[in-house]
């Protein structure tokens, strides 16, 4: 047996799952896709005493309309379901770029959006995508519910704002605005590995063709996903041009603090983040022109 002993409970409803979590708190973990939790349990890095299986809670899965201009994604939605949902990928094109980078098809058949975001691996793609898009996360407990913006959700390494009695139940994603283009790129040692650096970019133009909004988010270069949109000031109010892009690249490289790891030094990560920032911005911009 690889994992340490635990009690397994199959939740019959969201309310049932939440009441179990209220009872057991940090000793209990939700089991969704299990593609991060089970490996951690196999290594005995995670030793929950209660495992609450939420895989049968079909009302937690799927994609639908939320309020004006937003799509709602259930936390139990699997990557594979999104990869095959062309309407969703059209409305949220950052996902179309990012999903194929997440591990491998076998993992994407099981892994879930909510599990990924709750696990909060800083090298993972979706936390950066959520921060870049301005996703709003919906948390529930047995006694209440609340909304948290993605930029406030990721607190530290593998640490989120989810409290011991709470569950991430769905996320609301803004659909792409008109005159916008998006791009996600990353560099990893092998296909499917975690990113040494990854960049998500959304460029929006005003009616005169000037950049009215530029969103930038990075993964793999800090303890949390990094919102680097503040580094894009050089492009705002300007027509898209190489000089401004180079200024943004330099600002982003100054802004991030990669720690370096066994595969890449901090300097190399910073270099890659800069190159990817330039490429992602240019590709996002070209996609606006292409769509027009």
């Amino acid at each position, binding site marked *: 047996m*690889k*994992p340490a*002993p635990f009690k397994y409970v199959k939740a019959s409803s969201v309310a049932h799952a939440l009441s179990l979590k209220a009872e057991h708190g940090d000793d209990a973990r939700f089991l969704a896709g299990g593609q991060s939790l089970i490996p951690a349990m196999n290594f005995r890095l995670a030793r929950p005493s209660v495992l609450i299986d939420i895989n049968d809670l079909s009302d937690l899965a799927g994609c639908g309309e939320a309020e004006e201009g937003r799509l709602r994604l259930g936390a139990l939605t699997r990557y594979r379901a999104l990869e095959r949902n062309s309407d969703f990928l059209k409305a949220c094109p950052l996902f179309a770029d990012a999903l194929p980078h997440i591990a491998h*098809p076998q993992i994407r058949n099981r892994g879930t959006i909510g599990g990924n975001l709750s696990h909060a691996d800083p090298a993972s793609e979706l936390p950066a995508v959520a921060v870049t898009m301005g996703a709003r996360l919906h948390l529930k407990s047995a006694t209440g519910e609340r909304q948290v913006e993605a930029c406030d959700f990721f607190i530290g390494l593998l640490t989120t704002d989810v409290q011991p009695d709470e569950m991430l139940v769905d996320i609301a994603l803004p659909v792409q605005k008109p005159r916008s283009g998006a791009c996600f790129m990353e560099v990893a040692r092998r296909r499917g590995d975690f990113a040494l650096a990854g960049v998500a970019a959304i460029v929006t133009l005003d009616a005169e063709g000037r950049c009215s909004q530029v969103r930038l988010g990075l993964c793999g270069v800090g303890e949390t996903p990094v919102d680097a949109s503040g580094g894009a000031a050089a492009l705002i109010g300007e027509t898209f041009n190489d000089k401004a892009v180079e200024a943004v690249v330099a600002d982003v490289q100054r802004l991030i603090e990669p720690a370096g790891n066994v595969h890449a030094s901090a300097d190399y990560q910073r270099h890659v983040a800069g190159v990817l920032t330039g490429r992602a911005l240019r590709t996002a911009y070209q996609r606006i022109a292409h769509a027009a």
Partner: protein
Amino acid sequence: MQPDRHEIALSVNGKSYRREVESRMLLSDFLRHQLMLAGTHVGCEHGVCGACTILLDGAPVRSCLMLAVQANGHELATVEGLAGETGLHPVQQAMHEHHGLQCGFCTPGILMTMTVFLKENPSPSEEEVREALSGNLCRCTGYQNIVDAMLAAAKTMRNGAP
């Protein structure tokens, strides 16, 4: 702590099984040690190598990243069910003909991954085949013969084999 045991019922390769399992038993270990279906190989046990890939309701998944108790009520397929009465599956036949395996440890996972991939993508490019193989590690072949086998199998399957 008393062992946490659950009764499960599932089907593997069309055959029904009913067993009692401890909740912490991985599906990969259950298949090998309780159902004695040792064709599913166990490599890294944390989802990286792909050797333990099986089909859960028709979709390739890592059996080392699922608990046996989670398979309750589901239909599984393993490499033991791949060959039909008339002989090897076209993907198995192509691996044989193109020398797509040496030690064979990774082969069951590759077969389970690629039979589904080729069914969904009947005319893949070489690049698409390599991408589909990316979640299965092979330390012998250097992949080239596996890629050749998959392109040949795709052709056979397009021409009407099962």
